[in-house]
């Protein structure tokens, strides 16, 4: 028998109101996937009933205000350090559910050590990595994930990987470690369907929702989880929004192939 509060909550979820989402308008640019991910995460927190245990650890970059939209406890990490903060928090309070939303500059460049070691220890924490192949908030500089040839403000001739080294693949790197439980890469933007002009698939959103829930489930089962979302940054890519969706699916998805990289608990088989 559900309590009145639980009944209300279940209706609100069914009717589309996400309890763990604040009513504050998001600051993200038009066409950016950060807003989509924010909703997916808040929705998963509702679905798994984690609101009173979840702690979001903001990163430095576009997700630095994520706590203003996701209505749970929050800590603001120094640039790249979210996995270390989550590790310390989880060791002291194993009942809490810490998770971060980090960009590729934050997690794969300045915070790579923190990410790798938290994953290597198998800390029961969750990292949502938004990979848009560029530094967004600082205005479009080259990121560790910038693909060959992409023009950024610090690679104005296009990235020359002979000079800078190739883009770093975080999902591949982390999934090669022994302890992580769940590593998945999702192409989050809508994707233009071939031979159907003007028709797009939002499959990434559905997959993303499942991946976010699985990532939390992996943590609840005691494992480390990472979900990387291939995303767009049309403002800094200097592309029209729909062109940037095409670029994500045609270029980025080739450099960073979406897919299930690790699933030690068989979470995807259970569904």
């Amino acid at each position: 028998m559900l309590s009145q509060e639980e009944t209300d909550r279940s209706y609100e979820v069914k009717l589309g109101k996400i309890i763990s989402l604040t009513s504050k308008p998001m600051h993200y640019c038009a066409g950016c996937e950060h807003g989509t991910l924010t909703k997916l995460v808040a929705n998963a927190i509702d679905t798994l009933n984690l609101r009173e245990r979840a702690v979001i650890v903001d990163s430095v970059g576009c997700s630095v205000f994520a706590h203003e939209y996701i209505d749970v406890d929050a800590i603001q990490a120094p640039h790249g350090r979210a996995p270390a903060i989550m590790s310390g928090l989880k060791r002291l309070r194993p009942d809490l559910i810490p998770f971060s939303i980090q960009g590729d500059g934050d997690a794969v460049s300045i915070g790579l050590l923190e990410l790798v070691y938290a994953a290597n220890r198998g800390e029961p924490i969750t990292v949502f990595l938004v990979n848009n192949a560029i530094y967004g908030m600082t205005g479009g500089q080259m990121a560790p994930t910038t693909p060959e040839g992409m023009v950024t403000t610090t690679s104005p001739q296009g990235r020359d990987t002979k000079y800078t080294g190739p883009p770093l693949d975080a999902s591949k790197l982390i999934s090669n470690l022994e302890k992580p439980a769940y590593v998945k890469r999702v192409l989050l933007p809508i994707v233009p369907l071939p031979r159907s002009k003007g028709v797009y698939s939002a499959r990434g959103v559905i997959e993303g929702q499942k991946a976010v829930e699985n990532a939390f489930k992996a943590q609840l089962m005691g494992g480390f989880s990472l979900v990387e979302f291939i995303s767009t940054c049309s403002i800094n890519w200097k592309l029209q929004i729909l062109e940037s969706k095409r670029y994500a699916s045609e270029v980025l998805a080739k450099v960073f192939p979406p897919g299930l990289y690790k699933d030690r608990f068989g979470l995807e088989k259970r569904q």
Partner: protein
Amino acid sequence: MISKDFIRGNEAIAYGALKAGLNGYFAYPITPSSEIPETLAKEFGNQSYPEFKAFLQSASELEAINMVIGGASTGAKVMTATSGPGFSLKQEGISYAAGMELPLLIVNVNRSGPGLGNLGPEQSDYFQATKGGGHGGYRNIVLAPNSVQEMASFPGLAFSLAFKYRNPVVILADAFLGELKEDIVFPEVSQQKFETPWATTGARGDKRHLVLSLNLEFEDQNNHLEHLQKKYADIDKFEQRAESYLVDDAKVVLVAYGIASRICKEVVNRLRLLGIKVGLFRPITLSPFPNEEIGYLSQGQRKFLVVELNMGQMIYDVKLAVRDSHTVDSMNRFGGILPKSSEIVREVMLLHA
């Protein structure tokens, strides 16, 4: 029950923290502080310390201080220990903790610098510990033990100050004190529980807990800094601690903290036997600097000799605190070398003449 122990300074810090109810320790090894994590690793899981729930060796100093931030955000008593080079790396996290107003304890067993320097005792991290150290304007509370006994009792004091003011606290020791073995008696600490209504322990209804340091609106940041400024003023007003030894009739007052103050006390005792009026003023809190007491002392016709294991850092605080900065002289030893008491005696005699 009172237990008497003959232990090293670094071990005393570790047991002092455990007896004060330490919940978590995260650190990266570095000489000359490594006996602290070694001692705590040995005691982790010991039923005598049921509150000690987390011990983890980190992959870097940065990881360690951020683990401390994560633990402290839950309202737990968390600490780390390091030495000079590691203390530099931790400054980023300490700045964030100051901005987020987190109570945490950092032990710096000061070795010689800059750079790798060497493993001998120095007090050259005085500026870094007392003047902020990281980016932005903030103040740590800094405690300077001068005996193994104080190494054992200061973690408890540090936690009570950290939680009272929601502020990082540094215990600034040195390589000599870390290795020094002395007889001590562990203080009877009642394991204080602190109220932490701000801690990130899960949202309840409309009430959630935010541990943040970003205020994009200038007005908001201004208000936050005014709040910090008021807090630092309160700390300055209520928490100055110092020890005065035979200063009342002294013509020359030695000013020293940590291991240097032990040598200076010996000098005072020797010179007093010869009838020379010399005393010792020992800051126990380096931040807040005990300027009231030394300011009061400077009202008489006294000269001050600041003895430090660095090129002269605390001397600036002494000069600001006394009535006439021309009455302040300094004596410095560094590179891991302690001043001989005979050298200090010679300096005092020159001033006394």
